[in-house]
């Protein structure tokens, strides 16, 4: 693990891995979108609106996945002071916020024709909205301190405390009555969905994951370069 702690080595690995990530992500998007629109059937109850699922569900999964990644990276940063963990958490936050936002908006666009309303204050939707606010709070807190190390520490603690929201989101449709349907993919008895819909859903989910890895690598490289710029600026200020 500590072999990867060296930022210089990380940058070299990231640059080598990135073209593969981009290629695989593009292939997953192409095949996922093709199946989502052309080979998957309309739902017997929901008609063509079921196609919203292929962006809504991966976005919601990634909103939660990114938060879990951010919380774990924050814990590693707080406990072991791993130099890359904080950079990874920081790079993940805007991506997770974007995915959570998309799950809320596409959910709304799906809810209007199927439930007859854009929004209800039930447990699933409300806990997802809280997740979005947690991301915004994390990013705001990070920039709220003059001392960067204090901002990083405060936001890492917020990320950890907010992680309690993740199981609430996951089980919200079981614990409370909700307009939102229950789990159909991750259940004790395996997926309760036909393969013609499950395949495009999984392909799109992996495409979203590939996109996350891509953007996270770019943002981590940016953050590490910005750190080097700060060091050079300090040197410059002190006369080299």
């Amino acid at each position, binding site marked *: 693990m500590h072999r990867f702690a060296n930022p*210089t080595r990380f*940058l*070299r690995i990231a*640059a080598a891995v*990135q073209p593969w990530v981009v290629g695989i992500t593009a292939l997953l998007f192409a095949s996922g979108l093709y199946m989502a*629109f052309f080979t998957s059937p*309309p739902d017997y109850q929901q*008609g*063509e*609106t079921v*196609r*919203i699922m292929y*962006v*809504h569900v991966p*976005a919601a999964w990634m909103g939660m996945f990114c938060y879990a990644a951010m919380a774990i990276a924050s814990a590693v940063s707080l406990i072991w002071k791993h130099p890359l963990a904080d950079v990874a958490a920081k790079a993940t936050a*805007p*991506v997770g916020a*974007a995915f959570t*936002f*998309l799950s809320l*908006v*596409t959910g709304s*666009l*799906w809810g*209007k*024709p199927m439930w007859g309303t854009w929004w209800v204050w039930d447990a699933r939707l409300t806990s997802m909205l809280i997740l979005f606010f947690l991301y915004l709070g994390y990013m705001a807190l990070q920039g709220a301190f003059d001392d960067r190390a204090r901002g990083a520490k405060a936001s890492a603690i917020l990320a950890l405390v907010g992680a309690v929201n993740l199981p609430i989101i996951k089980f919200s449709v079981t614990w409370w009555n909700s307009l939102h349907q229950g789990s159909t993919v991750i259940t004790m008895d395996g997926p309760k969905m036909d393969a013609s819909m499950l395949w495009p859903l999984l392909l799109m989910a992996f495409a979203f994951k590939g*996109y996350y890895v*891509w*953007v996270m690598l*770019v*943002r981590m*490289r*940016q953050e590490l*370069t*910005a750190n*080097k*710029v700060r060091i*050079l*600026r300090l*040197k*410059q200020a002190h006369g*080299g």
Partner: protein
Amino acid sequence: MQEFLNMGGYGAYVWPSYGITALVMVVLLIASLRSLRASEATYKRLQAELGQGEEQETETTNGDEA
């Protein structure tokens, strides 16, 4: 084609879902790439100004593009 765009009468919900998803993901990606390029350019400029020949070990990762 018309039938495809109509989405069984739900085109007004299906297409905006895909549209906003594509828009948000593309904007975030481009913003991240541009910010990386800007940081790398600033880093190169500062390095040239300071005329540091001895910092070769940090230099090695700096030549590749996004």
